[in-house]
């Protein structure tokens, strides 16, 4: 049970942490200053979610690991985030398509988790549901504008959508969720979110004059700690300083 809950919290926390790390790359690299500010907001919200979830995971686990121990001292195979969020996103279209997918999923998830029988988790969800509503709104806004903007932006957005789509399905993978957590009303089965999340995304891409990609799902196994090659570099960069100076405070 404890192990199952720790794992569940780590998976959601890792999603948020790794996504935040990618989002922060955009600060000073966005198409305009307003977007630098928005990207920082998004990344900060996700980082806040990650910190709450990882701190709580450490508490539930009971081995005295802090949010920083979990973020900086675990190896790649112990990270449980979906591969969707770990891949590089140096194209603004890709960033917005991915945010649309991730925030649509996170929003549905957290909305459901506000009713969790675990009151700490419900509390985290209560804050996150408001944040992700804004993230989703931001992503929708951009996907619409770019999908239905210029000919070039339309082509770029369709390409971004085609590239990201195979990684969407992993968000609905429920193999890492302990059944007892579901029975006790602590966790939400990600598979149960599929219809509403895909419906939400389909609505936006339709209005954005984009076509739903006809591509196969990627073999994405982040929930088992099997990541893409890009994950190692992300962690190497994020963790190196903390690991170079063990046992100190910053």
């Amino acid at each position: 049970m404890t192990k199952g809950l720790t794992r569940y919290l780590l998976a959601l926390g890792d999603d948020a942490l790794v996504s935040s790390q990618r989002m922060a790359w955009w600060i000073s690299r966005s198409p305009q200053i307003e977007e630098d500010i928005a990207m920082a907001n998004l990344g900060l919200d996700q980082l806040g979610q990650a910190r709450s979830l990882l701190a709580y995971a450490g508490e539930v686990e009971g081995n005295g690991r802090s949010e920083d121990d979990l973020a900086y001292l675990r190896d790649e195979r112990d990270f449980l985030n979906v591969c969707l969020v770990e891949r590089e996103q140096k194209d603004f279209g890709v960033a917005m398509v991915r945010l649309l997918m991730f925030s649509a999923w996170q929003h549905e998830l957290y909305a459901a988790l506000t009713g969790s029988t675990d009151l700490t988790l419900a509390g985290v969800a209560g804050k996150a549901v408001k944040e992700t509503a804004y993230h989703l709104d931001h992503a929708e806004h951009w996907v619409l504008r770019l999908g239905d903007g210029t000919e070039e932006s339309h082509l770029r957005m369709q390409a971004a959508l085609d590239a990201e789509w195979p990684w969407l399905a992993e968000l609905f993978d429920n193999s890492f969720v302990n059944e007892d957590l579901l029975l006790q009303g602590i966790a939400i089965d990600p598979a149960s979110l599929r219809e509403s999340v895909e419906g939400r995304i389909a609505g936006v891409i339709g209005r954005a004059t984009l076509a739903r990609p006809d591509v196969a799902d990627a073999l994405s196994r982040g929930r088992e700690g099997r990541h893409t090659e890009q994950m190692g570099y992300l962690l190497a960069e994020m963790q190196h300083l903390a690991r170079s100076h063990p046992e100190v405070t910053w």
Partner: protein
Amino acid sequence: MYGNDYETPDAQRARQLEDTPESFRELLATEGRVEPRDEMPDAYRRTLVRQIAQHAHSEIIGMQPEGNWISRAPSLRRKAILMAKVQDEAGHGLYLYAAAETLGVDRADLLDALHSGRQKYSSIFNYPTLTWADVGAIGWLVDGAAIVNQVPLCRCSYGPYARAMVRVCKEESFHQRQGFEILHTLSHGSPAQKAMAQDAVDRYWFPALMMFGPPDDNSPNSARSMAWGIKRHSNDDLRQRFVDMTVPQAQALDLTLPDPEIRWNEDRGHHDFAEIDFTELFEVIKGNGPCNQQRMEHKVRAHEEGAWVREAAAAFAAKQAAGEGAA
């Protein structure tokens, strides 16, 4: 103006204001604020545009050296604080571009001037951030120097600039405290952390002192800016104020400022400090600093790679407007 050093300050001020509109002189005399619709001399407007734009550019380019450490911040709490700080700097850039726009220029044109090198940004950002401690040193010394420079600008004669500076200064003092706190933690941490902090202060001290500009006897535009109520104190006065403020803070940090000549001068009521070698500053201004090229390339690349996004947003907005017109 070099030949007029024998003038009294009042006479100098009066001469600077010759041939300016009566209403403008009246506003300056009564410490009133010049607002966008008020009459103002062209040279005053041009000087303000140049100064506010350079200030805005500095906020924006200033995001890069500290942004360099967001991905590597050594704790999640520090990462969050740093992201919020760099975000604040983007906000400062926005307020300042908006203040410049009240003078009849466009943000897009100002950005073009930055990208093509016609307008400058503060040279301090052409130094690299080599270690995590540099994030602390920048917060403490660079934001600290910025505060000393900018607090008097809250009383600047041009209303929109003065008001933007009030907001900016509040946030800069947060940044300065956060930087101090980073260095304090490092200097009371492991020997390696302490050495990292000392090294950062050693590298940033003189560049921070140079942020106040050249010495007064080599600062050709100061007199006019003072007469216009844009500048309130001389470069050297501000630099002295910064040194006096910083010396006790360095002691509290248990770090040494890299100037053996710093000592309290009872007669002057100020700290003495070494004469600054400005040759380096002038090299950096000329474009030969360690990061001049990198900062500009980063900024220009982001701008160019974002062009399709801005174009699409404009096209979408035009379609929406046309659609609404039709309906």
